[in-house]
């Protein structure tokens, strides 16, 4: 067999079900090998960025490693955004790119790009495979690095002549990585200290980040929260990691988190960060963040400890073991939690400061109403996976959708990649064929990657795209409104260009246009039940702003709340 066959045999040996890609000159041997046969399904994207986000969506919805394939040069550089996105959100991803023939490397050959060099700051590791014999061990190592320790993207660049060279295939049992030793054991003393701090705390908060999902530690988190009777807030990345209908769930912290979530975080006496990294969107001004809290920081990545906020009690290790260890210790000691007064306080705040918006008597369709209707239409279902783009609609999705299951909310957090939602939904559908996958998108986001509607339709990966269409680059509009005296500069996209329903139909999908509250529920219900790809264009109030909001650089306690206009009634 040749090197290209060896790539496919390696993917098969890794148990890969599906890869997302787009062929080109430097991966012709690889695609020829696919034509000869493989058990790995190939989903043909329309743009390599789409393929990369699909692989991310697949990874986030399934918990497995996503695989993206692209050719050299522009194919590879089109993967840069998904790689950076996966880097920021710790999504396990193996990107396989073709490279020009080895003797042409460095000559500025056609479609040559030093993609290994370009991506060095945004991958966990990368390999340029210069010898066909290295294909199996490098792919073994690539998968191993992608999903062990803190998850993230890796890149394997394979020149065309290496794909064509002959090889006797043998897949190694273990990766040869003397320098890669992610923590496997947990320091029992640190676990005991963390448990002790929890047992003694009057006002603890579990601040849960995406690391809990990557660690597969949601059950252990659940047990710890219940044992310690500790309230839970989940970051955007962790939405769904803890059931949102649970009595101990208290929302999402950060820039557009509710007041009660932010107050919980910032007035607690013990902050237990679980696979979270004190991102600026969560903390607001760092120096003013959770000023009275003792910090327990649990993470697989020791470099996160003390990176932004110093930890009083750091515990490094696999979160399942860490969380289970703390729970066991609490149970063994049998001290009664002292958190009931604190939980009552949080409940009071939640009732006192609900998320609010002016419904406007149905005169204009409000974006929040779109999300509330989606929430109500899917209430109680455990087979819905949400994806989002980035912007106002994403924040409303966080605020209004209810996610009770891990991996049911797939979004771009750290990098904030507009256009992520639609291809991620296609990837999520490949991961969860039985689920209803709904992409809540913005009109700006949709236009960045809507070509992947073709992939959804033709690859039989039906998704529902709900466009919260305010005709603006809404979040930029909001910042211009709030911080630049409403001087709107190049943010107006219009409601009607393109006609999203017609565009959907042009792709062979169903298209719906919703301009009023009356039309909303029937259209969404029909689209959800259709079983084929549908786009619901919800033309919402163009100038609705997303509240609450912590302005950039402000302290979390200084959040700005929605103020009811006086003339508006209910």
């Amino acid at each position, binding site marked *: 067999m040749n090197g290209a066959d060896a790539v496919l045999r390696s993917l098969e040996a890794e148990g890969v079900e599906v890869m997302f890609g787009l062929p080109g000159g430097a991966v012709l041997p690889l695609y020829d090998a696919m034509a000869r046969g493989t058990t790995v399904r190939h989903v043909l994207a329309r743009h390599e960025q789409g393929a990369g986000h699909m692989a991310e969506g697949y990874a986030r919805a399934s918990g497995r490693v996503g695989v993206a394939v692209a050719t050299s040069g522009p194919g590879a550089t089109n993967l840069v955004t998904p790689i950076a996105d996966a880097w920021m959100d710790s999504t396990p991803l193996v990107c396989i790119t073709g490279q020009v023939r080895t003797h042409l490397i460095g000559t500025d050959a056609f479609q040559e790009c030093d993609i*290994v060099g370009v991506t060095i*700051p945004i991958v966990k*590791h990368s390999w*340029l495979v210069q010898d066909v014999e290295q294909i199996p061990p490098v792919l073994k190592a690539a998968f191993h690095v992608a999903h062990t320790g803190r998850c993230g993207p890796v890149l394997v660049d394979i020149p065309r002549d290496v794909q064509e060279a002959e090889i006797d295939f043998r897949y190694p049992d273990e990766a040869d990585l*003397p*320098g890669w030793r992610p923590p496997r054991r947990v320091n029992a003393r640190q676990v005991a200290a963390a448990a002790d701090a929890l047992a003694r705390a009057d006002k603890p908060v579990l601040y849960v980040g995406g690391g809990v999902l990557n660690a597969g530690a949601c059950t252990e988190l659940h047990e710890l929260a219940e044992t310690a009777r500790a309230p839970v807030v989940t970051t955007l990345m962790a939405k769904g990691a803890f059931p949102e209908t649970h009595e101990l769930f208290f929302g999402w912290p950060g820039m557009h988190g509710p007041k009660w979530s932010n107050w919980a975080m910032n007035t607690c006496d013990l902050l237990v960060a679980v696979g979270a990294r004190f991102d600026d969107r969560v903390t607001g001004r760092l120096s003013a963040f959770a000023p009275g809290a003792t910090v327990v920081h649990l993470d697989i990545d020791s*470099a996160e400890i003390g*990176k932004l906020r110093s930890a009083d009690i750091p515990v490094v290790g696999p979160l399942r073991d860490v969380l289970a260890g703390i729970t066991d210790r609490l149970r063994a000691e049998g001290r009664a939690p002292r958190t009931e007064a604190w939980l009552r306080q949080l409940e009071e705040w939640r009732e006192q400061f609900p998320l609010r918006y002016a419904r406007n008597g149905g005169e204009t369709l409000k974006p929040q109403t779109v999300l509330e209707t989606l929430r109500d239409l899917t209430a109680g279902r455990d087979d819905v996976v949400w994806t989002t783009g980035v912007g106002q609609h994403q924040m409303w999705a966080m605020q209004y959708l209810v996610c009770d299951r891990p991996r049911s909310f797939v979004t771009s957090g750290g990098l904030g990649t507009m256009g992520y939602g639609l291809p991620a939904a296609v990837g999520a559908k490949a991961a969860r064929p039985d689920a209803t996958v709904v992409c809540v998108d913005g009109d700006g986001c949709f236009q960045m990657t809507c070509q992947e509607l073709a992939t959804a339709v033709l690859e039989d990966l039906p998704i529902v795209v709900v466009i919260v269409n305010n005709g603006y680059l809404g979040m930029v509009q909001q910042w211009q409104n709030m911080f630049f005296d409403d001087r709107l500069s190049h943010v107006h996209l219009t409601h009607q260009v393109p006609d999203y329903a017609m565009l959907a139909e042009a792709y062979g999908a169903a298209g719906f246009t919703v301009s009023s509250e009356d039309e909303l529920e029937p259209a969404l219900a029909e689209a959800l039940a259709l079983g084929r790809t549908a786009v619901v264009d919800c033309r919402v109030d163009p100038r609705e702003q997303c509240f609450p909001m912590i302005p950039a650089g402000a302290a979390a306690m200084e959040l700005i709340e929605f103020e009811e206009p006086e003339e508006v009634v209910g």
Partner: protein
Amino acid sequence: MKHTLSVLVENKPGALMRIASMFARRGYNIDSLAVGPTERHDVSRVTLRVDCDQHPLEQIEKQMHKLVNVLRVAELVSGEAIERELALIKVTAPPVRRGELLALAEVFHARVADLGPEALVFEVVGSPEEIDSFEELVRPHGVKELVRTGRIGLTRASDRTGIKRRQHILR
């Protein structure tokens, strides 16, 4: 506060670039950097002098540990390690000044590596501080060009922990 880190890396293409890129991206300052072979053909040693005013040493060490090619990161603590540096210094030296310069060189055990009609090149090996002093003393004579290797270092022969750690990575 400056620290010296001794880093063992796999001798693989791009390993140094990954370290340099990580330093650049995270805004860590490198004072000097020296790379060379070790007793193992597949392992190189990178000796870095880092400025830890803005970023704590611990954070720099941890970020380096995350690089897949990095085998070990250790701080060379003064007193427990020896550090050396080599400098080549081309100094203006008309015949009338040579005697003075050579006397100076003798004190620092500097060698004359090359001699021309109007200049000479000193080769000096020593602790970085000694080299600093020598540089300062010859500077009034007119330094035309200067190059330093950057410091390299090893833990002392009497240091047992160093030996133990090495065995761990050699397995």
